[in-house]
């Protein structure tokens, strides 16, 4: 059974695509997090153009999956939320990137 699943995954590279990252908004968030060491909530909101609620919802999902680390602190009595990719998240994003390249790279024009 396990061999069959593995075989089907080898035949179907889409099976390797992480649905958690594949959602457009989370893909956008993961892309920005991939290129920085860390970023705060306000900066991420600004570059992604997402609303507070929307961004927070996606961050929560990514945090629950262990893909990102969120650390909160207060600076001048104001909340400061720093976000960074975990090793697991970075590996997952690389896997997603390679998977998509494999899937789309072989398509004819």
């Amino acid at each position, binding site marked *: 059974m396990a061999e069959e699943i593995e075989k089907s995954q080898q035949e179907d590279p889409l099976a390797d695509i992480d649905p958690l990252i594949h959602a457009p908004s989370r893909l956008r968030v993961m*892309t920005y997090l991939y290129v920085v060491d860390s*970023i705060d909530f*306000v900066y991420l*909101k600004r570059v992604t153009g997402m609303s507070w609620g929307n961004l927070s919802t996606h961050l929560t999902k990514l945090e629950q999956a262990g893909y990102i680390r969120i650390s*909160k602190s207060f600076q001048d009595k104001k*909340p400061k939320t720093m976000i960074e990719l975990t090793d697991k998240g970075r590996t997952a994003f690389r896997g997603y990137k390679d998977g998509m390249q494999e899937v789309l790279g072989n398509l004819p024009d």
Partner: protein
Amino acid sequence: MTKKNISIKEAERQVYRSAFDDGLVDIFLASVVLMWALAPYLSVYMGDFWSSAIFLPIWGVLYLVLRWIRKNWIIPRAGVVEYGPVRRKRVTTFTIIMVVLNVLFLILGLVAFFMPGGPGWTKTIPFALMLLLSFSLAGYFLDVTRFYVYGLLLASGIFVGEYLYQNFGFSHHGFPVVFGFLSAVIFLTGVYKLVTFIKDNPLPSEEQLQWEAKNG
């Protein structure tokens, strides 16, 4: 912004480039260019050295003012980011190249300045080259397109100044007029960008901050 295609390279550029959206660097640059406009006049009273050195405390005060603006107006609106290794390496490379180039051009400039005789054009070429190359490198390494334009304007401004001096008798090789004008252009660009930035990025409301503290 949300309609843009996602590309890792473009995302990295966008994160970095947005650090220059506030126009503060333009305002500081304008003050440097203003020195080139005013120093020739001041040198009559203060000599070559002090007519330039007098600007150091002015730049110091301006730097502190801009830093205060950045801390109190920009960061609460823009947020903060720690760049990744690719960008850090790029900035380090840029810094090293700029230091080497500026030392080289300083030597060339001094040689040209103290070289007896020779037409004015020969003395302006190293200065124009330095400006063009420095701003082009800044544009390339920092991914800020308008720096290319500044470099081109400033470099060609030197020749325009020389032309005005030789043909219309403008004082000090036309530096005060040309660089005074370009300083105003760069300053106004900076102020426009600053005002636009503040307008486009309002401060988070108390409600949003409380919400972020709870859920963000």
